[in-house]
């Protein structure tokens, strides 16, 4: 956050200090991670005392590279993506000191997994229309409603939750943001099987769930604004990490092309090269976005990256199945498993093809992202709307 925190040299000095005090070869994993957090090297742009140093965000990649080179364990970020990418920045921005103290450390360490209770059966793209109710009772809020598509709810200890606290005002204004304890007896998680065969996401029924007011994030009625922080970070997180050339999904199709000359045809060659170019250009574009962030001049380009990666992943994984020909007729495993990560690369091409379909739906659909680009970046007028100034309870549904 702060631009005048420690510089690269100072950060590197701390990395070396950490490695000297805790030899990654002989230190137990969690002990090393705790020491790393306490040294401010978890997320350097966070404030001191909360795993950071108040350093420029761009220095994090330096820290990660340095620690990886030394063989240090990481916090398995893929397992805790929602916590790292969405809950943490929101807690940092809107949380009380007590909330930051309580939640950020176990979140980063991976001791507590988080999920996101936003979408509902009746509120997806139009998230602000949500109907889960939270009613004040003394020092608590009592929450009742249904959430859906909740990734990782089956592993989660905590959730970020938005619920309606005032049905009498227009929909964007009557929402409040909470931290929800997933072990509350009123929380019921039921698996939802996906097109991949497994149940990565869930439906979550909330029946009289009691949330103390101390677990509210932000003001009562201000939840929509707080949620924007979460959603923006979600979209940045998808497409945010640096890739090497030919990294990502293009890697496996390129490898297959090289190893299996018998599969090659001229038409597939042309499509492969087009997608290779798209992959490289998308990678460079993401790199440019990161460079803009690093010099403190974020451009609107960031909002396009999720759109670009969704399209690319879908096209590349589709080509891969075609290239495989007869083998593409077979699927790895339809077992209804309960995964705790999305593993694009350790799985077969059929899984990649199917799972990539979610990339243009999760975290805001590609259609909705195009609306956002057209309206907020290009400044085009919005579609005529009838729902903006009507009290939520009077909306047609």
């Amino acid at each position, binding site marked *: 956050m702060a631009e005048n925190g420690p510089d690269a040299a100072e950060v590197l000095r701390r990395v070396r200090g950490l490695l000297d005090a805790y030899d990654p070869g002989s230190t137990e994993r969690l002990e090393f991670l705790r020491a790393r957090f306490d040294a401010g090297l978890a997320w350097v742009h966070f404030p001191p005392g909360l795993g950071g140093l108040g350093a420029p965000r761009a220095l994090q990649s330096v820290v990660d590279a340095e620690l990886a080179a030394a063989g240090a364990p990481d916090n398995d970020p893929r397992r805790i993506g929602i916590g790292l990418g969405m809950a943490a920045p929101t807690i940092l921005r809107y949380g009380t000191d007590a909330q930051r103290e309580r939640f950020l450390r176990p979140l980063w360490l991976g001791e507590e997994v988080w999920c996101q209770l936003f979408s509902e059966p009746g509120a997806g793209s139009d998230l602000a229309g949500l109907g889960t109710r939270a009613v004040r009772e003394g020092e608590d809020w009592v929450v009742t409603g249904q959430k859906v598509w909740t990734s990782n709810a089956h592993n989660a200890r905590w959730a970020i939750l938005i619920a309606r606290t005032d049905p009498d005002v227009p929909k964007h204004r009557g929402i409040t943001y909470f931290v929800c304890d997933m072990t509350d007896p009123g929380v019921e998680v039921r698996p939802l099987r996906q097109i991949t065969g497994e149940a990565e996401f869930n439906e979550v029924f909330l029946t009289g769930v009691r949330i103390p007011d101390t677990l509210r994030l932000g003001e009562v009625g201000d939840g929509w604004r707080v949620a924007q922080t979460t959603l923006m970070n979600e979209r940045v997180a998808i497409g945010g990490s640096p890739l090497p050339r030919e990294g990502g999904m293009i890697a496996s199709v390129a490898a297959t092309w090289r190893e299996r000359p018998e599969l090659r045809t001229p038409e597939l060659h042309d499509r492969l090269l087009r997608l290779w170019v798209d992959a490289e250009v998308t990678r*460079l574009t993401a790199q440019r976005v990161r460079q803009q962030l690093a010099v403190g001049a974020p451009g609107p380009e960031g909002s396009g990256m999720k759109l670009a990666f969704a399209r690319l992943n879908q096209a590349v994984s589709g080509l891969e199945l075609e290239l495989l020909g007869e083998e593409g007729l077979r699927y790895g495993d339809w077992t209804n498993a309960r995964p705790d990560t999305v593993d694009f690369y350790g799985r077969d091409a059929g899984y990649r093809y199917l799972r990539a379909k979610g990339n243009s739906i999760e975290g805001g659909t590609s259609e909705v992202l195009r609306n956002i680009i057209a309206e907020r970046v290009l400044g085009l007028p919005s579609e005529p709307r009838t729902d903006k100034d009507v009290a939520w309870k009077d909306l047609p549904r």
Partner: protein
Amino acid sequence: MNTDGLDLLYSDVEDDLRAAVRDLLADRCPASAVLARCDSDTPYDLELWRTLQVQLGLAGLLVPEEFGGQGGSAREVGVVLEELAAAVAPVPFLGSAVLATSALLDCDTADGQVAGLLGRLASGESTAALAVPLSAAPGGAFPQGVEADAHGALSGRVTSVADATVADVLLVPAVGPEGPGLYEVAADAPGVRISAATPLDLTRPIADVELAGVRATRLAGGRIAEAAVDRALLAGAGLLASEQVGVAQWCLDETVDYLGQRRQFGRVVGSFQALKHRLADIWLEVVSARAAARAAADALAHGAPDTAVLVRVAQAYCAPAAVHAAEECVQLHGGIGMTWEHPAHLRLKRAKSSEIALGTPGRHRAALAALVDLPPAAQATGRPAVTA
């Protein structure tokens, strides 16, 4: 193959250069004037070219300071090309300051003849053209259209040379008894005939060059000549991507502006989602094209080891992106987009002809296949060969 060292942003100096070029063009190169010139028999604005040289030193931007130039790099040239292309300014910058200058810089610059010519280009005293078809791609065979005889006199024909009609110097690749060479020819030397063709791109004229026993000075021979021509084409292709970004951005901006004002069915046309989504897609292509073009320019500027890959990627991506943006610009303007009077067609013509210039996207992809080890399918062999 690490590209993390690339700088994909614009420096403050580059931003200032852009602003200076843009201001000057806003003042001296209005759309109406560009259009009027297209119907005249003076398609180039040589006064503008001189002003760009006198005020900003653009003719010698790539020429090192020791020869009187600006000592700029491909990064600055890219910024200038974005602006010149957005305005479709009819000046021979690409032909002289990029293609011809790049070829010269890859000759032996300690040679007096080469150094002298670089000095004249830098001062604006001379304008040069590299005598290859604008469609020539890097990585091809050395041009065979012109022969040098034992006395160094050139004969032959080169078609579709960009910016040749306003060049006073031609850099001619020719094959002689000693193999390939790069020659300097005065455009007004006896035996030179330069005839303007009718170009698809009205703001980048092309011409056919005929040489009949023309006296020439050899600037480089053998491998050096071959490499100089090839590297000029590679640099040109990589920098053309910046032109394509400039054209695409202009088309996007113009269309967004128009659709934000035009009303039909009782509402602003730009509020229809079908159109908003098409513009969002164009925006994403422009954003991506810019990253690709900056990567190519930065790699050319620093002689990065993977320059060829980044140039091929940039052309393969940016050329169709510019065509797409220009085609959408015409379509989304409706009837007015189809008129001669509206400036959209000048960008469509620029975009489409630069898709062909310096290698088509398909050729760049084919070259890339070799560079990144993605070999084509084996030729269908029909019947197995019989071995005796």
